[in-house]
């Protein structure tokens, strides 16, 4: 049985993605949504890819749909206090034993015409179990949270921003693969 588990852990998966090109990852590194991202019930398996070193952003790249990717961040990295209660059904679904088992991320919406107006959805965070790599989008129906919390409070932040061009170059795929292991060690 041990041998079987080991072979599963070493099993590789190759994904063609729109953004990163071809990615190869360990099956054991996949994040599996047991409570799906609403509207994307067909996509349950994802890879976490750190955008850049020290970046507050992670890519959530679907391996079931190579064209599907989200951007995640943690509100605390932007100075936004975020304390929440994980609902019981999600605690069960993710097999959470201790609060420290999980990391909380939020999905980021970035308007094409005004990227500094990007917002995070604090009512529908993504919870990822660090060890089992089970994940869930949970719904927090509370007036304490907003679905569109601006990540940048001050206009001065705009001056600091530089934007990636749309087309990933050939190196990015390689960088992305290196980033996978970094992201995984952080999650």
């Amino acid at each position, binding site marked *: 049985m041990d041998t079987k588990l080991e072979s599963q852990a070493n099993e590789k998966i190759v994904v063609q993605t729109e953004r990163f090109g071809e990615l190869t990852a360990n099956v054991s590194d996949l994040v599996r949504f047991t409570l799906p991202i609403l509207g994307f019930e067909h996509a349950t398996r994802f890879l976490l890819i750190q955008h*850049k070193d020290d970046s507050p*952003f992670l890519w959530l790249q679907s391996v079931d749909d190579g064209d599907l990717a989200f951007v995640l961040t943690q509100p*605390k990295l932007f100075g936004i206090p975020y*304390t929440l209660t994980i*609902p019981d*059904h999600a*605690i069960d679904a993710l097999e959470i034993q201790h609060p420290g088992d999980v990391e909380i991320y939020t999905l980021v919406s970035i308007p094409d015409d005004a990227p500094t107006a990007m917002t995070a959805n604090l009512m529908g965070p993504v919870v990822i179990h660090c060890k089992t790599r089970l994940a869930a989008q949970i719904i927090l129906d509370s007036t304490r949270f907003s679905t569109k919390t601006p990540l940048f409070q001050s206009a001065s932040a705009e001056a600091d*921003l530089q934007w990636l061009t749309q087309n990933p170059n050939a190196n990015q795929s390689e960088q992305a693969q290196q980033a996978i292991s970094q992201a995984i060690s952080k999650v």
Partner: protein
Amino acid sequence: MLVLSRKPGQRILIGEDIALVILDVRPDGVKLGIEAPRSIPIYREELLQEIRHLNQQATQPMSLPSDIEKPLLKDPPQVKLSLQLRR
């Protein structure tokens, strides 16, 4: 669809674990109380629709701030994330 008439204070039982209570009836709406096991998620439908819509908007952004972290995260604020597990 099953349709029932109820008065304030009256209840509807669904299965063995769930009870709906009519708390108040006003011209502009009805206030409901719901008693259910905590393991059963209960949502306002329009919130799920909003989140589904926002998830759609959050897909495959074509641009992403690249160097955002340098000005902003020199001194990351120490905001502690605390989770409460309710059991």
